[in-house]
């Protein structure tokens, strides 16, 4: 903790830095940009080495630490080279960025190895990955990272991964597999579900099922499935579709609250377990109160209410009154609601399907 922070108060602001660089480099500074907390200065190719040297040697800038140098594919404009510098005395960071000359065919950028030793390998890497030539660099060959006779420049956007073309994504879901709204399709895995389509996955699932028998009453999913199965017209997967998000949120809230209590209990290691327990109890009561409050809100037809949620309010209220948890009550109420709906549908056959189900 030596004098690191000593001159922090004298650090130049980005505007002052740009002014100083403009004064020293003239037209060499193209423009500047501040985004996401990063200060970038675009430098003309001719002033590239000079800019790096100024950044190091100007006493007011004193960018003494070379962070890294890299290149970025700039589509049809060719390639950008950027260098990130940091000053240990002022705590400032600057990004110098330039566009390579020579387009995509023969990009070149002057080397800054004379100013910063660390640029040596970084430039070799950029040569390796993008094929950018750095005049003034001691020796860019042999290739640093890839095998010596490697063909092509892997980080260029026109370099495609041949393995990907030859073989589909081996996982269960291709990352680009999305539903209409642009969501990644995610399924909640349960014990007993095969994690993948292969034989081995099925065998693993079987074993997992044997090792962990499904817990019975608390999950209610089974019950719902049973109830729904009674109704012949219910599609087998509609139960899953109905496992809505509101319910999950409530569940997480509940879980967090319990864990919060647990964390508190953790914190109090010195014997006051009783106090912790009392606290947990209090929290549980608060939770119950919150649950009741929420139920009341839901019952209020003005705030969305039962119809939008697609639950049977009567059943719900009854179960809450019986002291069941909100999640269970909601699930059961939902099942009852579906049942009723189906019955209504059957009653009025040929009529339009209830659109509420999709809600």
């Amino acid at each position, binding site marked *: *903790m*030596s004098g*690191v*922070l000593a001159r922090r108060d004298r650090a130049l602001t980005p505007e002052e830095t740009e002014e100083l660089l403009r004064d020293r480099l003239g037209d060499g500074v193209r423009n500047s940009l501040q*985004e*996401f*907390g*990063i200060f*970038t200065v675009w430098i003309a190719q001719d002033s590239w080495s000079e800019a790096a040297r100024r950044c190091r040697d100007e006493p007011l800038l004193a960018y*003494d*630490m*070379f*962070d*890294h140098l*890299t290149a*970025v*594919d700039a589509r049809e404009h060719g390639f950008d080279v*950027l260098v*990130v510098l940091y000053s*240990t005395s002022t*705590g400032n*960071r600057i*990004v110098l960025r330039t566009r390579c000359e020579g387009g995509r065919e023969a990009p070149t950028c002057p080397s800054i190895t004379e100013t*910063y*030793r*660390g640029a*040596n*390998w970084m430039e070799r890497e950029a040569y390796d*990955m993008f094929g950018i030539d750095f005049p003034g660099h001691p020796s860019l060959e*042999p*290739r*640093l*990272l*890839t*095998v*010596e006779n490697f063909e092509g420049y*892997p*980080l260029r956007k026109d*370099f495609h*991964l041949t393995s*990907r073309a030859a073989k589909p994504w081996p996982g269960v879901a291709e*990352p680009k597999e999305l539903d209409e*709204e*642009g*969501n*990644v399709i995610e399924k909640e895995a349960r014990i007993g579900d095969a994690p993948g389509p292969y034989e081995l996955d099925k065998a693993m699932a079987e074993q997992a099922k044997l090792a962990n028998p499904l817990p019975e009453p608390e999950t209610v999913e089974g019950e719902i499935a049973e109830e729904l199965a009674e109704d012949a017209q219910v599609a087998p997967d509609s139960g899953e579709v109905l496992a809505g998000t509101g319910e999950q949120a409530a569940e*997480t809230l509940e*879980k*967090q609250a319990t*864990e*919060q209590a*647990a*964390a*508190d209990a*953790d*914190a109090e*290691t010195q014997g006051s377990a009783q106090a912790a327990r009392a606290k947990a109890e209090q929290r549980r009561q608060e939770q119950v109160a919150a649950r009741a409050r929420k139920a009341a809100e839901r019952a209020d037809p003005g705030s969305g209410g039962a119809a939008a949620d697609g639950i049977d309010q009567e059943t719900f209220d009854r179960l809450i009154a019986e002291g069941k948890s909100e999640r269970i009550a909601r699930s059961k109420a939902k099942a009852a609601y579906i049942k009723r709906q189906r019955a209504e549908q059957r009653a009025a056959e040929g009529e339009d399907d209830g659109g509420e189900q999709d809600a």
Partner: protein
Amino acid sequence: MSDLDTKERIQPGTAPGEDVAFEIHGDGDFPTADMSLSIGPAHPATHGVFRIVLEMDGERVREARPVIGYMHRGFEKLAEYRDYRQIKALVNRHDWLSGFSNELGVALAVEKMMEMEVPDRAQWIRMLIAEWNRILNHLMFIGSYAIELGAITPMFYAFREREDIQHLLESATGGRLHFTYNQPGGLKIDLPKGFLRESQRLSTVVRERLPDYFDLVLGNEIFQGRTKGIGPLPSDVALSIGVTGPTLQATGVAEDPRVTEPYLKYGEIDVPVPVGENGDSFDRFSCLLRRIQASLDIIDQVHDHVPPGPVNSKLPKMVKAPEGATYVRTENPLGQLGYWLESDGGRTPWRLKMRTPSFSNVQAIPYLMEGVLLPDAISILGSVFFVVGDIDR
């Protein structure tokens, strides 16, 4: 020995395509020829598949040329093909000893671009696990550096602690090396019950055992003889190369993003930064060892701060960083890990540059090894802490 003999003896050590040039030094009865000595890529003295070609003049190293790329797996390209949630599984494998810290950087970068609020609890837990991860990493290097210098015992001591810590972290994250515990916006899941208590207990245990290492390794006369004054690195050279972490701190520069540019909640607690004096092998190692102590201090402070609350914020349906670029650096166990994240607004990054500490640190090796004796070269090689995957990516 005839010239031909020498040639035949030396040839197998050189890489295909390299010139074998002989220069005769000295005169009279003992002329010596330069020898090109290729160590690695699979050699006990280089942890991992690291190769270094030494141009030897007798016992002295004239020139050292690290040859890297044996573990180049193309992370930066692969990251462009994976979305932001999948990247974390990829990035925590490049420096395999510090998985959590690696994925933390990506999560911070994405959060910074998407302007996400991360709950306090998640931030404190991230710090806690990052520090445990740092200790895991440093313990490994205590073991491996001692092995390189000819002592096997510290490795067994180090793994005793490592197993305990891994067990602790596994209870929260489910992983022993690669935790995949971060996600943009927070953590995957909350800590299990009793984690903090166990963590507290373990921190006391490790702290009690720490003097063992100081006595066993640092206090060892042979160890001191082989490291003191070997391979000193001046701070200006170190900065110009971009050396960071314990290797930089050993030169006397207290540069540590946790202090100078606090991320997470490091600004709210006291972060000790151990520094050395002249940046030789001994200082580098002693910094590493004292960083364990510093991490334990941080862990103890974090225990008092972890607030209750949620551990993740609600993610948007698609994790998409807006167009633009940002840079996030964090203090990885081996030095500063920076992610230059450039996005075109899509689901996958346009460019994810990893500025890895080992890549920069290893660049100091040619400077450090110039003119040293061969056994000292090994002492230097081990003390510039690197992980091969972190160099090559």
